């Protein structure tokens, strides 16, 4: 497995191993598009009183997912607002009444007897009702579960090998909520009807692996196995994990469904636990706030719709004005322009980085050193794709399989000429889709 040795900077936000619960925010702006698919229609209007956990947008269409209010209060506006990925998108703004009151029937702990009778259909229905999507990629969970049953997926893999620089929201969940994650994963396995379940860890993440394996032992869970994957960053190339789990060589182009496997992220398993055990809609999630510009870098239970500014205030504010504001990790994240941008369901980290950590690099012409080739985890030739893309020779570039690219950023990271290679490869992929 090709890759690079990368500084993870996890200690910055893990020095204080807690997840900080902030005060109820005074206002939230909840975007309707927080998952992969189409948006639901708002079912509240300006001035309506809403409770925490109440559905504020819903639709019967298959690609849509209900959206829940994350604080109690009054709807102050329905309309376009800043969105972390789409620029401007339709959102619902709610002003808090200070009471933070749950909707009737939400956030009630279920007894063992209630849970025993739950069937697969019930669980799938629940995951839709509580607005669950994958907390990293944004795939809709109930659709994924249904597809899994239709295409007879018999193996579920909980992907704990995903490690990105600065992002510790998964790691802190393992450290503090290991049992809940395992219970949630058991519910997921039950809902999908799978017969085998695995948790994959990177060999670099041995500490968290020990936590989970000790919990598995003490809870006497025997149907979940732990698998260790090898390799350098990026740690969770799907074909690599599949070949570790299935103990046979899996070609790079294989999709997990083709070999009867589905991947779920750790945060999704935890959200599924909360939905089933507590009947709690997805209204808050763990967000890592990190970077040198933050006074107390740490993990925060951020309500969906909280602005970045209020999340930073929870962490003591900003020490100085950051040069870049990044959603996600420093290798695969997205640049943000506005401090008022809201936290959404797949916001795993917010980074405020200064200029000396992330300077702007002028790119020079390619010297064809070939450094990008040995670090590519999917063994494509980024240098040739970029060369052809720069000359607008898209058809020639397609012959070097840019569609395999996972956009990990290794080639750009090592490039001595500082060429934004991932950007060019993404552009080539867009051209490939356009044809």
């Amino acid at each position, binding site marked *: 497995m090709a890759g*690079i040795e990368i500084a993870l900077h996890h*200690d*910055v936000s893990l*020095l204080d191993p807690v997840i900080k619960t902030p005060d109820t925010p005074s206002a939230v702006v909840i975007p309707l598009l927080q998952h992969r698919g189409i948006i639901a229609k708002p079912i509240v209007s300006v001035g309506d009183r809403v409770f925490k956990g109440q559905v504020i947008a819903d639709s019967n269409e298959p690609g849509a997912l209900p959206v829940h209010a994350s604080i109690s209060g009054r709807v102050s506006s329905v309309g376009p607002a800043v969105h972390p990925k789409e620029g401007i998108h339709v959102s619902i703004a709610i002003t808090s009444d200070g009471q933070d009151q749950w909707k009737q029937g939400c956030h009630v702990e279920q007894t063992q007897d209630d849970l025993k009778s739950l069937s697969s259909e019930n669980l799938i229905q629940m995951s839709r009702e509580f607005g669950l999507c994958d907390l990293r990629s944004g795939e809709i969970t109930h659709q994924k579960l249904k597809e899994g049953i239709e295409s007879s997926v018999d193996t579920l893999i909980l992907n704990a090998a995903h490690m990105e620089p600065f992002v510790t929201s998964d790691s802190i969940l393992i450290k503090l909520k290991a049992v809940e994650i395992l219970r949630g994963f058991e519910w997921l396995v039950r809902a999908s009807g799978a017969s085998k379940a695995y948790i994959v860890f990177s060999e670099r993440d041995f500490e968290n692996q020990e936590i989970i394996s000790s919990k598995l032992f003490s809870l006497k869970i025997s149907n979940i196995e732990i698998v260790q994957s090898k390799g350098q960053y990026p740690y969770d190339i799907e074909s690599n994990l599949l070949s570790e789990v299935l103990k046979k060589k899996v*070609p*790079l*182009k294989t999709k997990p469904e083709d070999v009867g496997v589905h991947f779920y992220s750790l945060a999704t398993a935890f959200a599924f636990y909360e939905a089933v055990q507590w009947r709690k809609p997805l209204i808050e999630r763990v967000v890592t706030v990190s970077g*040198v510009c933050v*006074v107390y*870098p740490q993990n925060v239970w951020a309500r969906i719709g909280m602005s970045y*500014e209020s999340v930073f205030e929870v962490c*003591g*504010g*900003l*020490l*100085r*004005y*950051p*040069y*870049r*504001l990044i959603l996600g990790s*420093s*290798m*695969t994240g*997205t*640049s943000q*322009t506005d*401090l008022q941008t809201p936290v959404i369901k797949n916001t795993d980290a917010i980074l405020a*980085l200064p200029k000396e*950590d*992330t300077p*702007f690099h002028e790119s*020079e*012409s390619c*010297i*064809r*050193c*070939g450094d990008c*080739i040995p670090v590519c985890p999917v*063994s*494509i*030739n980024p*240098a*040739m794709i970029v060369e052809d893309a720069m000359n607008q020779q898209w058809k020639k570039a*397609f*012959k*070097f*399989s840019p569609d*395999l690219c996972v*956009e990990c950023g290794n080639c*750009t*990271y*090592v490039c*001595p*000429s*500082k060429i*934004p290679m*991932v*950007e060019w490869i*993404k552009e080539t992929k867009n051209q490939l889709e356009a044809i």
Partner: protein
Amino acid sequence: MEKKTITNKTKPEVTRFLGREKTEGNRKIAQKVFKIVKKEEPFLVTQAPFVRSVNTVSRKMGVFILALSPLLGVAFFERGSLFLPQLGHAVLAAFVFEIVGSIIFKRPLRFWNGNVILLALAFLFLIPQQVTWWGIWFALFFGIFLGRESLGGLGKYRLHPSILALLSLTIFFPEFFLRFSTPMNLMYPAIPQELSINPSVLFFKGSEYALPQWPICVGALYLLAKKAIRWQTPFVYLASIAVLSFVLGKNPLVEILSGSILLVAFFVLTEWSSSPLTGKAQALYALIAGVITEVSRTWVGSPEAVILGVLAAQMFTPVLDRYIRIRSRA
């Protein structure tokens, strides 16, 4: 007298402030002074990744120049008075032509990245020691100005500029090569017959006309250890020459150690811009270069066989890059 006790206040506490050690007091001041800082300018928007490695072009060139330094030192000790003016003129000419080229073709000046120094040094060890200063300026005009700058500068050329400079010298001033019966700094076949029998003399001592070869091997080991070059190009090149010369009934060791074969294998063929990208393509490229070098040494009788071998192989570079893929499209 007051007793000095360490209270909680004075005891330094390690916090996670900036991920470095700071005291509790500093932390409180920071919290008081800085809330959300006022907006100064928009955040920088680029695509991921936002962090880059320390790998730069000048650093990569520096590794090559460092690898050439043992050879430079030996040349300096063995023939300082002849070598130093050549060195000065070559480096100066390379700089001048790059600066003139970037002014004429309206490019930003980037001569400090060391690429032209490397090209000038490679050229310097390929020419006879008797080449005059105007010969060097003339050759580097062809090599650096026409062969590098007019094609677009750094990274845009596909034929090695030093070899082009050497070619222009052999064509326009063949007397440099003929008068001294081809005595290059590292030249084949200027070695007297009794020397050519003993490879160890070639390796450790050199001759009147040829520098010893061990500094090149030292530099090559450094390059391989630093992973600046891949093993494919030099080893396939040397192996193809050794096998072919053995088949043709020569001593393979003498064949490799005489002339500029070792220098070309490690410092000229591995030049990035003119060689293929992937290991497989590089092996094929080196094979072409090796076969043509050995064939032209045996039958063509050109003054320096490597010119033909290197240029012919580099003509194939674009084709090799395009058709030898690591992964075929499924």
